[in-house]
Each structure stands twice: as structure tokens, then as C-alpha cells.
């Protein structure tokens, strides 16, 4: 019996660390995405951009492995049976955000969009807001495991930032379609802006679910 309990605590501690590492990956991917797009805007598809893209892909790959490991452990070790489904959903939602960071950055790599200089600063703003949004989502999610009282604070920041991204992307697209660019170029830029902005929407969706899980977690 004693051995069983020690084992249970050791298993919990190991999984705690995996979940923490997974949250680190969300923040890493957000920062790397920011770096990647800044590099693209500054130097196009440079070697440095390719290197950053590769690093982002690695982060996404590591996060996938961590997610699978967390899911496996939760079920095979029968941990938190009452909250297991919620934790799995949460981890999957966060993973979706990481995947999108990787996919959007890769889209830049593949499509090599031609972005006029006048839009650079606003795209940088948008990327900044989206990455901030994802980072706050990650902190809110981390708080869910340790300090429920903080979840709402960070959730509020996510909602605020998501709204900001809506405004920024709206203004950006307006300005793109008001320009003299070729329609195909306009459509490509607009799609890319949408893709970036959608990451904030994903973060918001994941926060919506997180707030419900938080109510459930309260005793």
C-alpha cells in the first residue's frame, strides 16, 4: 500500500513536469513564430528564416510527442479520472495553436508572399498581438493546474488581445484592398492576415473551454 502511494506521487510528479514542459512549448512556439515573421519581413526567405522555421517545426514535433505522452500517462496510469477528459481537451487545444504557428510560418516559406514595406509595421503589430494572446492563453492554462484564481485574469487578457487582433487585421485588410496592388496579391495578403489572426481565435476558443473546466475544478 505504502509503495503504491509513493508510486502514485512519483507518477504525478513526472506528469506535472511533462505538462509544464508542454506549456513551455506553447510559449516557445509563439516567440519563435514572432521571430520567424520578423525575419521574413526584414530579409525574406533567408537562411536565418529557414533555420527559424526548422526550429519552429522541431518545437511543434516535440509538443506533439509531449501531448501524446501526457494523454497516454493520464489514461494508462488512471490519473485525475474526474478531470482527465478536460485536461486532454485543453492540451489538444493548446497543441492546435502550436500547430498553427508552425503552419503559418511554413506558409510564408512556401508562398513567399510579396509584402510591401508600408504593411510591415502593422503586420508586426498583428503578430505581436497574436503571440501575446497565445502566451497569455498558455499562462492561463498553466494557472488552471496550480492557481485557479489567476485563470480569469489571464483569460481576460486573451479576450482583450483577441479583440485587438480583430481590429488590427480588419484595418490591415481594408488598407490592402484600398491599395493599387494586383488583386491576386491582395487576396494572398488578405489570406495571410486571416491565417495569422485565426491563431488568436483559436486561443480564444481554448480559453472559453478552459473557463468551463475551471468552474468544474472548483470544489
Amino acid at each position, binding site marked *: *500500500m505504502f509503495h503504491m*502511494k509513493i508510486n*502514485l*506521487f512519483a507518477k*504525478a*510528479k513526472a*506528469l*506535472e513536469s511533462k*505538462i509544464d514542459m508542454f506549456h513551455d512549448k506553447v510559449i516557445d512556439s509563439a516567440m519563435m513564430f514572432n521571430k520567424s515573421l520578423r525575419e521574413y519581413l526584414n530579409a525574406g526567405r533567408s537562411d536565418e528564416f529557414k533555420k527559424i522555421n526548422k526550429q519552429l517545426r522541431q518545437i511543434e514535433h516535440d509538443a506533439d510527442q509531449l501531448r501524446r505522452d501526457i494523454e497516454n500517462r493520464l489514461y494508462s496510469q*488512471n*490519473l*485525475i*479520472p*474526474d*478531470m482527465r477528459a478536460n*485536461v486532454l481537451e485543453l492540451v489538444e487545444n493548446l497543441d492546435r495553436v502550436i500547430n498553427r504557428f508552425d503552419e503559418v510560418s511554413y506558409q510564408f516559406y512556401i508562398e513567399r508572399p510579396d509584402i510591401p514595406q508600408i504593411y510591415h509595421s502593422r503586420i508586426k503589430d498583428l503578430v505581436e498581438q497574436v503571440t501575446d494572446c497565445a502566451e497569455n492563453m498558455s499562462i492561463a492554462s498553466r494557472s*488552471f*493546474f*496550480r*492557481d*485557479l*484564481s489567476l485563470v480569469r485574469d489571464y483569460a481576460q487578457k486573451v479576450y482583450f488581445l483577441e479583440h485587438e487582433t480583430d481590429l488590427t487585421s480588419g484595418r490591415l485588410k481594408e488598407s490592402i484592398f484600398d491599395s493599387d496592388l494586383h488583386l491576386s496579391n491582395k487576396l494572398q495578403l488578405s489570406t495571410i492576415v486571416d491565417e495569422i489572426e485565426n491563431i488568436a481565435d483559436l486561443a480564444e476558443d481554448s480559453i472559453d473551454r478552459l473557463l468551463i473546466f475551471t468552474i468544474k*475544478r472548483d*470544489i
Partner: protein
Amino acid sequence: MTEILFLFFLSSGLFLGWSLGANDAANIFGTAVGSRMIKFRTAALIASVFVILGAVFAGSGASQTLGELGKVNALAGAFMVALSAALTVYWMVSSGVLVSTSQAIVGAIIGWNLYAAKPTDWFTLSTIVSSWVTCPILCGIIAVFTYYGIKHWLKHSKIHLLRQDSYVRTGLILIAAFGAYALGANNIANVMGVFVASSPLQDVQVGGLIISKTQILFLLGGLAISAGIITYSQKTIQTVGNSLMEMTPIVAWIVVFSQSVVLYLFASEGIKNFLEGYGLPSLPLVPVSSSQAVIGAIIGIGLAKGGKNINWTIVARIIAGWVFTPAISAIVCFISLFFLENVFNLAVYQ
């Protein structure tokens, strides 16, 4: 021959013990098993061992009080008192009603008193009946304080969800042990109390240890309760707790903790003597209903949470069961005693 006859008459008490194990063990670990926090096998094993320990080592106090209500002085009478209570409990459990073994046995004893034209000690009866009211209220108060205490602690400890899960599991196992001990200590009186006066058993000396005849009786009762836990409690687990209010494992722990403390307070001679030694008010040592205690705790927590989650219809149905259980049990006992005395020519009282 006497031993065989004794065992035959004791069988109704053992059946009652089995019913109690099948019914009341669900109060101790029902939610923990239902929510898959602990395995049924682990919970049943721990509860089986501790229910026997509680019965043998701390069961005498509540049993004496029950003896004062009606000293069932003939073995055949004791057989029928226990059988009537057991049948009432079994019938009501089968109908899906959470019943109180304590109230069934009290009803059956009163049925015996009426049949045997023995006076019912109204002081003892009022003490027992008042405990039926005190028990859930006290349990509710303890549950509310524990609930707020744990909520406060969780808020400030910033403990990780997974570590919290480990603590809760450990806590549920420990509380299953304590809950079973308290259940054995308090409720063995329901199962074996009526046989104490008419038991032909003798004290036994094992090495330097003397096991009293009452303890042997309680050991047998404890084994019957354990058998009920192992063989049938899994079925009753489905109806406990969550049908009254959605419970998280922590709330389940609080409910079992409060229930165990209350059951122990109503069974512990040590605590009673300690409190009286300091001139403090103490609780009477009476068998109380673990179902009542659980409901008191759940309602207490439900009210602390705003009272929105409580299924009051179920509460009303359970309260109705509390009224009908002793009444049905008394009627069944009275009729059965008549049958036993006049058809089988057995002395059901002296």
C-alpha cells in the same frame, strides 16, 4: 445442539449485518469508487478489515444504549427482531430507497416491546430519536466547516492538480478506513445488539488476551458486514451521492470525513468520558444512520454552495423512508413474533 440453534437464530442478525454492509458501505466509498478515484477491490478490502476492527474494539457503547431500549431476552425473539429489521432494509434497498438500519432495528425492538408487553424506555427512545435529528445537522455543520477550510487551503496552497489528485486518493483510502471503523463501532449495535442479552457464548482467552462474549458476537457481526460490503455494495454505490448532488472527489472526501467523525462521536466511549471529565456536553452513544449523516453533509455543502444543486425531491423521499422504516419494521416484527410464537411454539420473550 445449543450452539447450532444459536447459530440458526443468529443468522437473522448476520443477514442484517450483510444488508448493512451492502447498503451503508456505499456511503463510505461510493463516490470514490463511482468516480474511479479508487478501485472497488481496494476500497472493499480496506473497509471490510476496518469495519470488523471498529465493531470488535469500539462497538460496545452504542450497543448498551440499544439494550436499554428493549432487552430482548429470548433468542427466538432476538432472531425475529433482527430478521424484521433485515427484511425491511432488504425490501427497501431492493426498491432503490436508501434506508437506515438503525431506524429499522429501533422499530423492530419497539415491535418486540409491544408484543412482549414490556415497557419501552421513553428516555432512551427520545435520546435515540433526537440523535436522528442531531446526527445529520451535526454532520452538515462539520461538512460546511471542512468544506470552507479545504477551499481556503486549496486557494492558498497553489497545489498542482495532479498532486492534489494524489492527495485526494490517499485521503479517500484513509477515510474509507476510518469511515469503516466508525461504521463498525457505531452500527454493530444494530446488527448484534439484540443478541447480547440472550447470547449463550462465553468469554475466550487467547494467550494473555481475553475476548469477551460480546466481542465474539461483534466479530461475527463484523464478518457479516464485511460479506455485505464485498458481495453487494458495488450495486448500491450507483445510487449514493451523485443522485443527490454532483460531487467532486474532494467533496466526496469531506462528506465521508464528516460522516465518519459523527458516527465515531456517537460511538466512542473514550471521547464521551473525556468530554464529561471536563464538564463538557457529550453526545449519547447511540447507533445512528450513516445515510442520514451523509445526507446531512451533502445538504450542508449544497447550502454552502448556494443550494442550487440539491435534488430536494430525493431528500424528501429519503426523509419519508426514515419515517416509514421504523414503522414498517415494528409492524413486521409484531406480526412475525405472533407467527413464531403461535405456529412454531417458540418463546419469543421471557
